[in-house]
């Protein structure tokens, strides 16, 4: 159990992904060779300008939008902030109420909380035990003061995919704008902004094998959104600042690769993930899968193990070279367990004992075998230490 392991097994792709070599290769010329400022007039700035515009086309094509509807940002968090604050500030004459869900990313929730301090009101809709928002609840929450509905395409912790098209339709039926945080969904959920009734969509490059510090906001043509970053005239005067040209080029190449064959990618990843889930639930008693049984991201597995605590699990997995994540209070700065796990109704203790494994393109069946070998040992060891474990523990043999 304490053998030194050289191996590093990365299964935390919801946190971030490695960058693909094709992406790095696409970016490389834009650091030193084509370093010009796209805003400059001389011919030398043409190549960087073309690089940015080609990427805009790649992002637009990936989500069924027009290139003029794509605005590059410094990441998913900026895109969420811009969408929500921008809509709120630009539409204040029409209303001051926002509808969102209890399980949004903090980039959405903390932005909404800030708007509440500015005098807006926000409804945080509950979710069911699987993490789904009921479009009927959205309809009930909308008032004549509502200007925006924001619901994520897929959840970062439990992987639950929301009925985005239905939520968007409800919003549109009432003349309300619809924003979706699709940061976890790109490359895993096919997106068509028209068919899915989306007016604003946030995405982030490093979640789909692109560079960190890159993102984009889709803004449907004609949508009133206040500018947040003031300065130069970049991004059609809506988001100032010299473009992160290599990053944008990388984001474009990455989204093109990630959306080329979503169904095939999902089949391969989900088959490994399903074996992982079955293996863990079979080997470890008093364990459960959090999130939706079918409507979930192909790469997401989120478990709760009773009687043990998540940070302890992570550190013992880390000692065996496995990188994973938890919603335990002990690993959060606030000492509060994950708001997502509490919102799906988990008692504190089970949120405490949660573990998220998110697979990616470099994972293999061999990796699944290794986790299936190590994780039951880790849980068994911690259950030996825990006073909460029942007296006749139904734990597997540790050695």
């Amino acid at each position, binding site marked *: 159990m*304490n053998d030194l392991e050289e191996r590093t097994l990365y299964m935390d792709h919801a946190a971030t992904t490695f960058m693909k070599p094709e992406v790095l290769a696409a970016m490389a010329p834009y650091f030193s060779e084509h370093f010009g400022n796209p805003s400059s007039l001389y011919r030398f700035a043409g190549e960087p300008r073309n690089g940015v515009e080609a990427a805009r086309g790649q992002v637009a094509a990936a989500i069924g939008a027009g290139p003029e509807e794509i605005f590059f940002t410094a990441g998913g968090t900026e895109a969420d902030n811009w969408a929500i604050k921008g809509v709120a500030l630009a539409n204040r004459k029409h209303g001051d109420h926002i509808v969102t869900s209890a399980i949004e990313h903090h980039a959405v929730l903390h932005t909404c909380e800030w708007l509440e301090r500015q005098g807006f009101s926000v409804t945080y809709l509950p979710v069911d035990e699987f993490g789904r928002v009921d479009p009927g609840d959205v309809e009930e929450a909308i008032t004549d003061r509502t200007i925006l509905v924001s619901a994520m395409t897929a959840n970062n912790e439990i992987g639950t995919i929301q009925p985005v098209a239905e939520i968007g339709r409800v919003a549109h039926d009432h003349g309300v704008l619809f924003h979706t945080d699709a940061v976890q969904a790109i490359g895993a959920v096919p997106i068509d902004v028209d068919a899915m009734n989306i007016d604003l969509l946030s995405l982030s490059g490093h979640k789909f094998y692109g560079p960190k510090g890159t993102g984009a906001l889709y803004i449907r043509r004609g949508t009133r959104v206040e500018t947040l970053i003031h300065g130069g005239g970049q991004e059609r005067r809506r988001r100032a600042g010299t473009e992160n040209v290599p990053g944008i080029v990388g984001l474009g190449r990455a989204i093109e690769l990630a959306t080329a064959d979503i169904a095939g990618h999902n089949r391969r990843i989900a088959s490994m993930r399903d074996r992982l889930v079955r293996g863990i639930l079979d080997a470890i008693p008093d364990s459960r899968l959090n999130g939706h049984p079918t409507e979930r991201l192909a790469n997401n597995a989120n478990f709760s193990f009773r*009687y*043990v*605590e998540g*940070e*302890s699990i992570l*550190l*013992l997995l880390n*000692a065996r070279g496995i990188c994973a994540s938890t919603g*335990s*209070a*002990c*690993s959060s*700065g606030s*000492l509060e367990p994950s708001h997502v796990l509490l919102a799906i109704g988990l008692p*504190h*203790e089970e949120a*405490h004992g949660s573990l998220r494994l998110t697979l990616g393109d470099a994972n293999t069946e061999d990796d699944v075998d290794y986790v299936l070998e190590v994780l039951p040992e880790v849980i068994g060891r911690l259950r*030996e*230490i*825990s*006073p*909460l*474990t029942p007296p006749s523990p139904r734990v597997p043999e540790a050695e």
Partner: protein
Amino acid sequence: MYTEKVIEEFTNPQNVGELADADGVGEAGSPTCGDTMKIYLKVEGDRIADARFRTFGCAAAIASSSVATRMILGMTLAEAWSLSNAEVLDALGGLPEPKVHCSLLAPDAIRVAINDYRVRRGLEPWERKSCSGGGDCGSCPKKG
């Protein structure tokens, strides 16, 4: 974020388990995060002859439990009673600030176990200063 000492103590904790013939048993929980420690003491004369623990919690809670059960071995009950979380922290080479409250668990559980021993022997329990968490003893993270 953890010192090597904490990781070592957590990865290879000492004195894990229960004592069927314990003379005193104590349980303490952290009001902050829900961590729980249960400790079993064997007392010979006035000294702690053996100690075992079981803890539900993070690495800091398990490491604190392990190091504290080692520290009180051979101590008189009065000495063990006065074990402070500052001493537990020192033995671990410190804990990150949000984790300092985890080191309260072990001294708390030890005092509950000592009083359990005293009550079983028909003695008056010693008076415990109750901790509401976040006081000004310097043990808890400052409220902010």
